[in-house]
C-alpha cells in the first residue's frame, strides 16, 4: 500500500517536474527542473529495481546532460540571445491535442500488453555463465549485445568530431572550451582539489564493479569525466589542443580496442565472439579502455569545440 503511494507520489512528482521543465517561463528554470527531473527518474529506476539504469540516468541523464544545458543557457544569455515568445494559443491547443492523442495511444498499447510476458530475463540468466560476468545487464551490454555497445561508443566519437568541427576555422588546433580560472584558494579551487580523489575512486569503482554488480564503463566513465571537468573548472588543468596526438589516441583507444577484440573474435569463433574462458578478462579490458575513452570524450563534449587561438 505504501509502495503504491510512494509510486504514485513519485510519478506525480515526475510528471509535474516534467511539465515545469517544458512549460517554465524561464529557460534557466526549465533546465534546473530538468536536472531535478533526471534525479527523480533515477529514483524511479531505483524503485523499479533497474539499478544500472538508475546509475546511468543519475550520471548521464541528470548529471552530464544537465551540466551541458546549464552551460549552454549561460552561454546564450551572455551572447544576448533573446527568448522567443510562446506560440499562439490556437496552435498550442492543436499541438497539445495531438500530443494527448499520442500519449493515449501509447497508454492503450501498454494496457494491451500481456501482463505475464517475461521478456528475455530467463534466457539471459541461462547464458549468464557463458558471458563471463555476473551482472546480467553488463552481460547483455558487452557480450550478448556487444555489437550495440560497440556502435554506441563510436556514436560518441562521431559526436565529438561533430562538435569539434563546429569550431571556427581560426581556432583549429587550439584547446577545447574556454580557459577556466578560479580564485586561488577560493571555494571553487578547493573543491577542485578535494573532490577529485573521491570521484576518481568512485568512478573506478563503478567501472570495476560493473562486471558483477550494477555499474559499468558508461556510468563510471561519466563520473570520471565529471571529475576531470571539475578539476578543469577549478582552473587546475587545461584541455590539450584538439590536434594533440595523445588526446586523439585517448578518445579512439576504447572503441579501437573494442573493435580489435571484436575482429580478433573472428579467429576464435566469430565476430565479437568472447570465448567464455577469457570472457571476463576481455570484458574488463574493454570496459577499462572504454571508460577511459568515454570519460575523455564526454569531458570534451561538455567542454565544447576549440574556442581559443591555435598556438
Amino acid at each position, binding site marked *: 500500500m505504501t509502495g503504491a503511494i510512494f509510486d504514485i507520489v513519485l510519478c506525480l512528482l515526475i510528471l509535474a517536474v516534467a511539465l515545469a521543465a517544458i512549460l517554465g517561463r524561464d529557460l534557466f528554470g526549465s533546465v534546473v527542473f530538468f536536472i531535478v527531473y533526471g534525479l527523480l527518474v533515477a529514483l524511479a529506476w531505483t524503485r523499479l529495481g533497474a539499478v544500472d539504469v538508475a546509475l546511468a540516468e543519475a550520471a548521464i541523464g541528470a548529471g552530464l546532460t544537465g551540466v551541458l544545458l546549464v552551460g549552454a543557457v549561460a552561454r546564450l544569455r551572455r551572447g544576448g540571445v533573446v527568448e522567443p515568445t510562446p*506560440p499562439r494559443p490556437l*496552435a498550442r491547443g*492543436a*499541438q497539445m491535442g*495531438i*500530443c494527448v*492523442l*499520442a500519449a493515449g*495511444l501509447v497508454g492503450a498499447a501498454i494496457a494491451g500488453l500481456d501482463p505475464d510476458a517475461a521478456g528475455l530475463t530467463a534466457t539471459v540468466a541461462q547464458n549468464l555463465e557463458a558471458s563471463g560476468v555476473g551482472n546480467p545487464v553488463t552481460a547483455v551490454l558487452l557480450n550478448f549485445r556487444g555489437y550495440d555497445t560497440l556502435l554506441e561508443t563510436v556514436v560518441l566519437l562521431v559526436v565529438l568530431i561533430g562538435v569539434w568541427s563546429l569550431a571556427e576555422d581560426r581556432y583549429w588546433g587550439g584547446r577545447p572550451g574556454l580557459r577556466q580560472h578560479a580564485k586561488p584558494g577560493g571555494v571553487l579551487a578547493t573543491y577542485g582539489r578535494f573532490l577529485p580523489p573521491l570521484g576518481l575512486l568512485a568512478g573506478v569503482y563503478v567501472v570495476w564493479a560493473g562486471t558483477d554488480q550494477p555499474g559499468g564503463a558508461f556510468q563510471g566513465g561519466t563520473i570520471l569525466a565529471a571529475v576531470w571537468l571539475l578539476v578543469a573548472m577549478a582552473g587546475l588543468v587545461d584541455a590539450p589542443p584538439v590536434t594533440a596526438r595523445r588526446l586523439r589516441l585517448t578518445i579512439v583507444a576504447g572503441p579501437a580496442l573494442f573493435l580489435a577484440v571484436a575482429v580478433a573474435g573472428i579467429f576464435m569463433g566469430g565476430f565479437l565472439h568472447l570465448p567464455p574462458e577469457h570472457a571476463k578478462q576481455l570484458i574488463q579490458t574493454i570496459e577499462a579502455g572504454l571508460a577511459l575513452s568515454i570519460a575523455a570524450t564526454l569531458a570534451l563534449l561538455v567542454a565544447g569545440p576549440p574556442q581559443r587561438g591555435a598556438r
Partner: protein
Amino acid sequence: MIVSGPLLPFAALALPLLLGLLAAVPAMRPRVLMLLPIAPLPALALALSGPTGEHTELPVLLLGVRLGLDATGAMFLGASALLWALAGVFATAYMRRTHKREVFVAFWCLTLTGNLGVFLARDAVTFYVSFTAVSLPAYLLIVHDATREALRAGRIYMILALVGETSLLVGLIIACAHADSLVISQVRDALADAPGREAALALMLIGLGIKAGLVPLHVWLPLAHPQAPTPASAVLSGAIVKAGIFGMLVLLPAGAGMANWSLALVAAGLGGAYFGIVAGLGQNGAKAALAYSTVSQMGLMIAAAGAAPLADAPAEFAAVIALYAVHHGLAKGALFMSVGVAGQVNGRARHALLAAVALLALSVAGLPLTGGAVAKTALKSGLEGPAATLVAASAAGTALLLLHVWVLLRRSSAHGSRPGRLLWAPFLAAGATALVLPWLLAPAVGVKASYVLSAANLWSATWPLLAAAAIAAAVIGLRIGVPRIPAGDLVVVAERMVPPAVSRRPAPSHPGPRRGMRRLDPIDRLERGLRRWSTAGPVLLGTAVVLAALFLA
C-alpha cells in the same frame, strides 16, 4: 531483260530525255539548239511505221512501264513529232540569240518526252507521268523570256497545271483502284461501272480539260501561248494541248451509261468553241488571238471526244478526231510560226507569208479542198443533229477569228534579223503538211475523198465562210468596234476580285524569352510552413497517430 517488245517506242522517249540531259553538258552549249530537231525523230519514225501490235514493257521503271501505239495514237504521235521537229528547226534559228538556251533545250526535250509519252503510254502511271512531264516543264518554255507578263502567265499556268495534275491523279487512282490494274484499256473498261465513276470522270476531265483548254479551264492558254517564245507557242498550241484530247479519247469509257457525260462534254466543247471565237476577236495580239482560236478549235475536238463514247464505233471515231487534231496541230503550229516569221520579213516575202497564212487560216476554217475541210467533214460525220450544225457554223467564227489574226499579222511590223530560211522552211513544211496530210490519212480513218467532196459537205463547208465574209464586210463597213477582251478573260476577273488568297503572314515573332517561372507564392508559403517545425512536427506526430489508428482499425 529491262525492255521487252519493240525497242522503238522506248527509244522515242529515251532519246529526247537523253538529249535533254546532254543539254546540261557545258561542252554542248554552243550547239545545243541543234538537238531540238533531232529529238522527236525516233517518234516520227515510229509513227510512220504505223501502229504496233505488241506492247513494249519496261517492268523496272516506275510501276512497270507499258508502251504501245494504235492508229489514233499513231496519228497524234506522228503529227506531234513532226510539229516538234519542225518547231525545233524553227527554234534553231529563232532562239539563236537568246540567253539560257541550254535550259530552254533541256526543258523542251523534257516536255517533248512527256508529250510523246502521253501518246505512247498504255498504262495509267506512265500516262500520268508523261502527262505531268508535259505539263510542268512546259512552264519553263512559257516563262523563258522572263518578262513580267511571261511570269504571270507562267504562274497561272502552273496553278492550273497543278490542279490538273492532281485531279487527273486522283481520278486515275479511283479508276485504277477499281480496275485493280494499271493497263489503260482495262482501267477504261472498268471505269464504266466503277463505284466512284462520276468522281473519277469529273476529276480526270478537269485534269485533261485544263490541258485541252476546256472552257472555263482554258484561261492559262491565251496567257501562256503568246508569252512563250514562238517555237514554244507552236508546240504548245499544236501538240501539247492535244495531250488532253488524247487523254479523253483513251480514258473515257464507252457505252450508254456515258450519256450525261457525253452531253455535258459536247455542250462544254461547243460552248468553248464559240467562246474562243468571241474572246479571240477581242484580242489585240496575233498570238493571243491564235491562242483563242486554239481554245475554240479544242472546243470542237472536246465536243467530238464527248460524243465519241456514244458513237457506234468509238475507236473509229477517235481516229477521226485524231485526224482533226493532226490538221489543227500542224496548221496552228504553222500559224504560230508565221507570227515569228512575220517579225523577220518585209516586202514581197511578207506578202507571200500573208498569203500562206490566209490559206492556212482558211484551211482551219474548213475551206473545201484543204486538209481542214477533210478534217472538219470527217468530224461532222460523227456528230448528229444540232451538234453537227453548230460545228459547221463555228467554222464561220473560225474564219472571222483567223481573219482577225491575219489583219493583226499584216499590221505587225518586222524588226528582227534572224536567218529567214530556217524560219521559213519549218513554217512552210508545217503548213503544207497541214493542207495535205489529212487527205492522205483520210482513208485510214474511213473517210473517203468522195464523201468529203460530196455536194452537201462542200456546201456545209462553204456557207460558213460566206457568212463570215459577209459579217466581216459588215463589220468593216459599219466600223463596228469589237469590244476588247483582256487575254485570259476569266482569270483577269478573278485576279481583280480575289485578294491574294494565300498571302504570307509575317512570321510570328517568337514569344519573348520566358522569364523565370512566376513565383507561385502559395507553394513558397507551403514549403515554408512545412519547414516550420511547429507545423511539421504536429503533422509528423499526427501521421504517426493516424497510421497507428489506421492499422488498428
